[in-house]
């Protein structure tokens, strides 16, 4: 060593100081309070309101909005909070199956602080059919964590959101409109709401009551011409008629609406950052029916269940009553992240996995169809007790 380090006049004083490190810490540790350590902390408690995780909830009201749409209001176990535009999963056991679906919340964030949350569901499939025909006030359900990025983002979005809603795709915007009206959010919202007929419009009365200098709603009927309504589809001409200046587009509706809107929006030459689309659930695929065998390791248990080639791996697990986690059902959120031990699969749509997931063989069962027998390790859905 080229030099001798010395802090004090005599090097041995530095050595003595070093020797005191241990007794000093020993002393400090012994001086700590003997009060019991906290069970929890303020920040962690707030995190639980923002992200309650799975919770059980009682169905407290069912309101028919249109012939094939109903709004289900739940009372939750605990208060929580979310961002207008987010979705929650609603699930329960139907026969031997575990079923859950994501729905955009149609109520206001503030209501969730009072343990009230609503989803508005169009009757169009297995679970919505169950809700429509079977669910009754007093029934218990499992709600998932509020999720999704389909929200107004003040740091990057233009404070004028042009919303394109198709059918039940109005629900996140109805939540946003309520959040603007009650002061939770501050932006201008212009909603173009497409429906086939006047009869099919959900929340007409409620939306009209919310109209203000910040909230505007333009109803667009495709199959009907009526006074007070625009006719046709939501296209560039209509946007130009009602909207000026800068805006961010948010769309929620069926895939066909997105394809049409994308073409129409080329007229505005908007960069990607100005367009947000809510993802739709992955459905069945059109292939020859065939049954594969799925071996699933969940927790310490192993199950062997059939998997229909037309349906996703997640659906196969749900049909068999396995407690598999699911959230977005569109491949994006990664909540169902599972390890593939063997077997082949096809992805529905774009690969939204993390890069390393592909490398180490992890899949998102919600957007993967079986192409052979498969073996997976699936993390268990951490459902509330008794559900």
């Amino acid at each position, binding site marked *: 060593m080229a030099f001798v380090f010395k802090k004090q006049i005599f090097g041995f004083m*530095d050595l003595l100081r070093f020797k005191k490190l241990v007794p000093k*810490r020993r002393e400090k540790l012994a001086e700590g309070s003997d009060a019991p350590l906290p069970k929890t902390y303020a920040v962690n408690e707030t995190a639980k309101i923002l992200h309650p995780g799975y919770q059980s909830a009682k169905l407290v009201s069912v309101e028919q909005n249109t012939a094939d749409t109903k709004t289900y209001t739940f009372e939750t176990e605990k208060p929580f909070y979310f961002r207008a535009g987010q979705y929650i999963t609603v699930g329960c056991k139907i026969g031997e199956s575990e079923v859950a679906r994501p729905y955009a919340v149609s109520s206001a964030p503030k209501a969730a602080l009072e343990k009230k949350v609503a989803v508005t569901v169009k009757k169009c499939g297995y679970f919505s059919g169950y809700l429509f025909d079977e669910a009754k006030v007093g029934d218990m359900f499992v709600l998932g964590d509020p999720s999704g990025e389909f929200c107004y983002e003040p740091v990057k979005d233009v404070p004028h959101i042009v919303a394109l809603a198709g059918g039940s795709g109005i629900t996140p915007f109805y939540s946003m409109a309520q959040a603007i009206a009650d002061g939770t959010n501050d932006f201008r919202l212009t909603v173009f709401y497409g429906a086939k007929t006047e009869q099919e419009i959900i929340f007409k009365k409620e939306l009209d009551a919310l109209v203000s200098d910040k909230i505007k709603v333009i109803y667009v009927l495709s199959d009907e011409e009526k006074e007070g309504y625009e006719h046709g589809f939501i296209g560039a001409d209509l946007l130009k008629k009602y909207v000026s200046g800068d805006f961010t587009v948010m769309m929620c509706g069926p895939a066909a609406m997105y394809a049409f809107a994308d073409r129409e929006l080329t007229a505005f030459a908007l960069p990607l950052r100005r367009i947000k689309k809510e993802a739709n659930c992955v459905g069945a695929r059109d292939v020859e029916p065939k049954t594969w065998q799925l071996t699933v390791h969940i927790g310490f248990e192993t199950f062997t269940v059939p998997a229909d080639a037309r349906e996703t791996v997640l659906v196969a697990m749900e049909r068999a009553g396995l407690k598999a986690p699911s959230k977005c059902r569109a491949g994006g959120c990664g909540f169902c992240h599972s390890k593939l031990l063997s077997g082949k699969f096809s992805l529905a749509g774009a690969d939204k996995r993390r890069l390393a997931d592909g490398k180490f063989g992890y899949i998102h069962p919600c957007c993967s169809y079986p192409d052979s027998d498969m073996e997976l390790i699936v993390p268990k859905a951490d459902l509330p007790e008794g559900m």
Partner: protein
Amino acid sequence: MKKYDAVVIGAGNGGLVAAVRLLQGGAKTLLVEKHNLPGGFATSFRRGRFEFEASLHELNDFGTADNAGDVRDLFDALGVTDKIEWMQIPEAYRVISRAEKLDATMPFGVKEFIDKMESYVPGSRPSMTKFFDLAEEIRLAQAYSSSVNGKTDSKIMVGQYGNFVRSGSYSVNEVLDALKMPKKAKDILNAYWCYLGAHCDDLSFVHYASMVNRYIRRGASMPKMRSHEISLALVERIRELGGDVLFNTEAVKILTDEKDGGVNGVVLADGTQIQTRHVVANCAPHVVFGRMMDKVPQAEVKATNARKFAGRGMTMFLGLDADADELGIENHNYFLYDTMDTVAQYNNMKTIKDNEVQATVCLNRAYPECSPKGTCMMYFTTLYMSDDWANVKAEDYYKTKDYVANKMIDRFEQDTGAKLRGHIEEISVATPMTYARYCGHPQGVIYGYESQYWDGLMPRLLMMGEDHTIRGLRFAGGYAMRLSGYSSAYFSGDISGRQTVGDIRKEG
């Protein structure tokens, strides 16, 4: 009942390494993690066309195959180095501080670093050279200490590592002053302090010098597929070695033996009981002693209460729709400070209103292909040195997040001249609430217990043996004996994993 030689609670960096070490030592091991992914903070997430790194700015002490650092040696021993694709970070850092009008960009390599410092601060060479000599001796002394599991021979220590011992009880500033380092050189050298989260009047010199030396001497690395690649590689290795890994599985209780008070089981959230005599807890002693054990020795309660939480984290992630050149983002790694008076700066970092510090990375400057052509990704991190976020109610949460995000963007633009506004395609912000949620850390702490003078690296290492008071219970991760940070957490898992193997063998 399920029976294991050891249960590792938490699949963070420390827990993952501990599990590999246990399995390599022949222990039947269960790893449980409450989240659905491994890694704790070492993960990534997708937004649109971007995959963001969740926390790793640069991996310290990894080095290259021919200039291997201790982390690479550890990863070699674990059998995971080759499962991961690595790349090198191009330069050490750029530090900008307003009060001193400081703007310096520093390279990796000891010689290069000293030369560059001399160009910024003429006359700094002798003290900088001494700094690196001292730092290297510290590294060697630590390697000796690790090789004997902390049971060092004081004659060897004083004889061979005298400078280490003589500087070992001082703070960063006390030693740098003794080396007669010019103030400006100190300011530039101290830029990394926020990586350790204690100010330089309190922070142990040994700890700081050890980190700086490893960065500058070996360079820094990144896995190409973000830290998620490391975490998945470690899980892969655990499964190869026959370990069981359960995600979405929270351990809620550690059961103890009535006779010796030691570990005799673990209870999972669904009520499942696991029989085991050994636990490596990759979580805070505050959590373990606060709610996971029914009978906690009074001395542990006092010791845990005596400790101070380190920084509570906040990170903003931006996906930008123009490349770094176009936006004027010149460097990979920035430290932006109000002042290099680290005590004053530390105090400013106590409140949401006053904290303007950021450690910011543009990953494309290290790895241009990390995002699609014509885009780039950035992440901005800060620490809060008090629980100001505990005052934020759920209904004010999103506005508070936006307030901090806007401040961070403004500050970066003002201090560097880069233009980010108008190019933000994706944004995500993690707050203390986010870290509390994902990793369960009290108050959203991301740095474990603060490296205060009395509770710094040296005394913790020297007391490793006597801190282990409950049979069968050892700790890994940011709260443990090596303190926080990626490499430290990996080392703590290595130490606690190997020590637990020793404990198991002793039991026969």
